């Protein structure tokens, strides 16, 4: 009875892959960005912070719609990828990754930025007097102290991508094994009134997410805040 159809199983795997790849990319992008936002005194810090927070305001399907236009043949990004012989991004896994990274950006940047800010200048100044170079200070002092922020950012980015719907719906085209993620699969089941499959997938998704979040909080999440 509790058996997933192969199609649904594929969606589960695809969702985990998307969330995993997105989270890793986000940590790589968000760390320098958050560091800069925490320490910069440039006048354009405010506008940059506002742009990073924008995905919180825009409804996901609307964001997906504009990404679809932007990555399409008439869009600036679409023209760029075509001229680089990369083809076009909509309806591909890579396209979903880019959409997800943009969509979850604030959830990764803000906890890390807060963590960096709460360290203050003092530990870094002390490290400097001990002749630690800039890179050394960052990797040996700032990063370990900001650990709770990184854990929170990872949890939020991963969870937010698993639960993402509007952007992938608009950008994905519901292709099995390529863009049909869990949320879209559940939505299709509900729309087709296949409630049993929908309940099974949705229930499994909730349970799995609960366990992952719980494990993260229990093991490494001391001080992590969501």
């Amino acid at each position: 009875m509790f058996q997933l159809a192969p199609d649904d199983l594929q969606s589960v795997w695809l969702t985990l892959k998307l969330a995993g790849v997105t989270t890793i990319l986000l940590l790589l992008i968000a760390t320098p960005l958050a560091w800069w936002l925490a320490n910069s005194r440039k006048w354009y810090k405010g506008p940059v912070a506002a742009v990073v927070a924008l995905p919180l305001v825009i409804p996901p399907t609307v964001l997906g719609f504009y990404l679809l236009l932007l990555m399409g043949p008439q869009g600036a990004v679409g023209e760029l990828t075509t001229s680089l012989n990369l083809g076009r991004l909509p309806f591909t896994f890579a396209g979903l990754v880019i959409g997800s990274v943009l969509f979850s950006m604030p959830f990764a940047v803000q906890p890390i930025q807060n963590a960096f800010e709460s360290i203050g200048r003092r530990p870094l100044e002390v490290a400097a007097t001990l002749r630690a170079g800039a890179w050394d200070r960052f990797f040996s002092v700032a990063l370990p102290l900001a650990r709770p922020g990184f854990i929170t950012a990872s949890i939020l980015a991963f969870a937010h991508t698993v639960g993402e719907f509007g952007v992938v719906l608009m950008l994905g085209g519901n292709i099995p094994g390529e863009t049909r993620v869990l949320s879209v699969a559940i939505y299709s089941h509900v729309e087709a009134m296949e409630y049993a499959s929908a309940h099974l997938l949705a229930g499994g998704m909730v349970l799995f997410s609960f366990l992952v979040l719980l494990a993260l909080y229990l093991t490494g999440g001391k001080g992590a805040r969501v």
Partner: protein
Amino acid sequence: MSQLRWNISGLFGALLFGMFPNTGFAGEVNAAVAANFTAPMQQIVAAFQKDSGHTVKLSFGSSGKFYTQIKQGAPFDVILAADEAISQRLEREGLAVAGTSFVYASGKLVLWSAKPGLVDAKGAVLGQGNFNKLAYADPKLAPYGLAAKETLDAMGLWRRVESRLVTGESITQTYQFASSGNADLAFVALSQITKDGKVTEGSWWLVPSNLYSPLRQSAVQLSASKDPVAARALLTYLKSKKSAEIIRSFGYELP
């Protein structure tokens, strides 16, 4: 001066209407309308409101969603569904007034491209394969998606195009995939690309109606209606000559 008098009487009327909303001279209808019928319904309702004095509030969306909402007590008086099954199901389940369902329009399937000259008059482009993606609506969710699948099956092309298919959750989304140029081809409703009886953009092939089951769209009056008189009036108006003209001008056929 006359403008002022009109304004005052309008204001007075609005006040009266606000105090006695259901007194018979002007009712209110909440209509759930299949998304593909958005544009014609807006025109029909504009005429209906002028002719009858009733007010109509329109909600557009997927009929499947409306069905679920009606089952959960959504305050709709009539539904104009995208197929026949939903109205019949509502009638069977007692959620709609028995005997009130009727086909108000028949949709037509087209193969469309935003690129001029890509789609030929016989749809041969499907077999030639000089396109990147072919968008169609999810056949489980949208009648037009099912019609598209039937067409590809009938032409014996399903296997050949399968790897290039992208699925929209509705024909609206399917149309967006093609109009943004992300998919070269799409199976959409003729009504989506028709304005004032003409197709103005891109290239298209009207799929012969013997390749797919008819896309008969059916409307029905709902049992929970708070204003059955106005609801009936709207459905009757939908069958009128004036409505028929509007419906045809958007690329639908009448039964």
